[in-house]
C-alpha cells in the first residue's frame, strides 16, 4: 500500500509525532498518531475498529518512511545513548538490529589501530580473511565448499572449524574473515530469517536474506568489521547465490570465492567450470579447488566441507581431509 502525502501533510505528521515524545497525552500512541494524521488531512474522527486497522497501516508506512518512533531521542548514531530493543512489527526490512554498546566519544577503529603493532604495543591482530571458501551455481543447484582452518595470527587454533552456517534447510551462509564477526552476524541473520518466516508464513528469499545481512554491514561500516560471506539458497526463483562483504557490498553471481586462498581456487574453478556439470563432476571441481588452494595458501587447510543446495534443501556431501586428497591426486598423476 503506497500513500502519497503532500509536504504539508508530512510536516504536520512529523510535528505531531515529535510532540509525542516524552509527554503524557491522553490516549495510546497509535490513536494519537491517527488523530494527528486525520487532523492534517482535515478528516473527521472514525470509530475505534477502523481506527486500529488504519493505525497499523500507518505504523508500517512510518517505519518505511523513517520517521522517528515515540520514545527515541536521536537515532542518528544507534550505538550511542540507546536503551532500546527492536520493536516487533511488520516487515522489518529496516536496519533493525541490536545496538552494540560504545563508550561516549570512543572511535571504534582506534581499538584495532592500538592492536596493529604500529605504536608501542607488541600485540598484533591481523584482520585478514584467512581462509578459502567457494560457491558456484550449475544446472543441478549450488555447490558450496569451504576449508576448515582457524588461525590466530600464525598459529593454527583449530583444524576442524565449521565455516558454513546452516541458516535453515534452504539457506546456507559461509564465513571468511574474522571468526567472531562472521559467527555473530550470521546467527543474527538466522534469527531474522526465522522471524520473517513466523511473521509472514513463508520462507525468506535469498535476495532478501542477503539484503538483510548487507544492511547490517552497512550500519557498522568503517568500524573495523571483517566478514566475507556467501549466502546460498533455493527459493521461488530457483537457486540463488550472493556475495556479501563487510563494506556492505552485495553481488549476485554464478561463481564466487572468498578468503586469502581465493585466487588459487578461482584458477582451478575457472579451468573446469561448465554450467552443465553432473553432480559428481561438480563435487570433484569444488573439492579440487579447495585442495589446491589449501596446498598453496598458508592460512587454509584442514578438511573440505562440501554442501549441495538442491531444490528440496541442502545436503552435506562430504568432509574430507585435504592432505589425503592431495596425496591421492599426486599419486594419480604419477
Amino acid at each position, binding site marked *: 500500500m503506497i500513500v502519497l502525502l503532500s509536504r504539508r501533510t508530512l510536516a504536520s505528521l512529523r510535528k505531531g509525532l515529535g510532540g509525542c515524545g516524552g509527554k503524557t497525552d491522553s490516549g495510546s500512541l497509535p490513536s494519537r498518531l491517527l488523530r494527528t494524521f486525520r487532523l492534517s488531512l482535515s478528516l473527521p474522527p472514525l470509530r475505534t475498529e477502523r481506527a486500529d486497522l488504519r493505525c497499523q497501516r500507518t505504523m508500517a508506512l512510518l517505519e518505511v518512511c523513517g520517521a522517528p518512533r515515540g520514545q527515541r531521542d536521536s537515532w542518528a548514531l544507534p550505538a550511542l545513548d540507546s536503551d532500546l530493543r527492536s520493536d516487533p512489527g511488520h516487515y522489518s526490512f529496516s536496519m533493525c538490529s541490536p545496538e552494540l554498546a560504545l563508550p561516549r566519544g570512543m572511535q571504534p577503529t582506534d581499538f584495532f589501530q592500538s592492536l596493529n603493532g604500529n605504536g608501542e604495543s607488541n600485540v598484533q591482530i591481523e584482520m585478514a580473511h*584467512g581462509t578459502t571458501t567457494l560457491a558456484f551455481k550449475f544446472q543441478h543447484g549450488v555447490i558450496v565448499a569451504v*576449508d576448515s*582452518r582457524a*588461525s590466530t595470527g*600464525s*598459529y*593454527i587454533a583449530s583444524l576442524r572449524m565449521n565455516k558454513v552456517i546452516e541458516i535453515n534447510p534452504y539457506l546456507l551462509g559461509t564465513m571468511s574473515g574474522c571468526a567472531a564477526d562472521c559467527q555473530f552476524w550470521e546467527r543474527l541473520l538466522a534469527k531474522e530469517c526465522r522471524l520473517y518466516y513466523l511473521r509472514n508464513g513463508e520462507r525468506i528469499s535469498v535476495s532478501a536474506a542477503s539484503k538483510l545481512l548487507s544492511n547490517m554491514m552497512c550500519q557498522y561500516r568503517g568500524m573495523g568489521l571483517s566478514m566475507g560471506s556467501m549466502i546460498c539458497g533455493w527459493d521461488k526463483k530457483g537457486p540463488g547465490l550472493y556475495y556479501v562483504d563487510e563494506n556492505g557490498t552485495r553481488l549476485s553471481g554464478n561463481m564466487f570465492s572468498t578468503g*586469502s586462498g581465493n585466487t588459487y581456487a578461482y584458477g582451478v574453478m575457472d579451468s573446469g567450470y561448465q554450467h552443465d556439470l553432473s553432480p559428481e563432476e561438480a563435487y570433484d571441481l569444488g573439492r579440487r579447488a579447495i*585442495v589446491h588452494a*589449501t*596446498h*598453496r*595458501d*598458508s*592460512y*587454509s*587447510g*584442514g578438511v573440505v566441507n562440501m554442501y549441495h543446495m538442491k531444490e528440496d534443501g541442502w545436503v552435506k556431501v562430504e568432509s574430507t581431509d*585435504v*592432505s589425503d586428497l*592431495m*596425496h591421492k591426486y599426486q599419486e594419480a598423476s604419477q
Partner: protein
Amino acid sequence: MSIMSYNEGDVMAMKRKDYVAIAANRRFGIQTQMVTMDFQKIFPMGCRLYISLARLATDVQTIAQRLKFRLNLCELKEGRQIKLYTLMSMVANLLYEKRFGPYYTEPVIAGLNPKTFKPLICSLDLISCPMVTDDFVVSGTCSEQMYGMCESLWEPNMDPEHLFETISQAMPNAVDCYTVSGMGVMTHVIKKDKITTRTLKPRMD
C-alpha cells in the same frame, strides 16, 4: 611481516650419547604462498657434519656456500678434517662479520667429531652467539611449538631408532600447528658407521 618470517624455516637437532639427529622442514614459501616442497635446508659440511639453516632463504644459501668455501680452504691448508668446535667458531666468525647488517638466519650444527666420534649439537643466533646443549636445539619460526614437543618427547637414554621416532614425531607435529610451516620434514640420523636419511610424508596444507 618481519624479515625473519618472510621465508619461514624450522630446524631441530637432538643428541644422544653416540649419535645425533637433525631435521628440517622442506617448505619454501614467500609470505603466505607456498612455492616448493623440496627446498634444501640441511647441508653436509664434512664426513659426519651437518649444518642446517632456517629463516631467510637467500641468506640460507649464501651462508651455506660461503661456509663451504672457507671450510674447503681450511682443510686444504691444514690437510685434515675440521673438528666440530672449530666449525662452530668458523660459523660464528662468519656471522659476526656482519654484526651491524646481519644475515637473517639462525644456524644449527650437528655432527660427530672426526677422530673421537663425540657428538655435538649447537645452535647460533643471527649474530653468532653459540649455544651448546646436551639434549636438543631448535631454531625457526615455530620454535615455541618445537620447544614444547621436544620438552615432552625427549628422553635421556634412547637408541638410534627411538631417537629417529622421537624427532619424527616432534618435528611434524610442531610444524603442522603453524600456518606458514610444514610441507614435509627431512631427517638425518648420524652414527659412527652410517648416516640414515629419511623424508617424512607431510600434511599437504
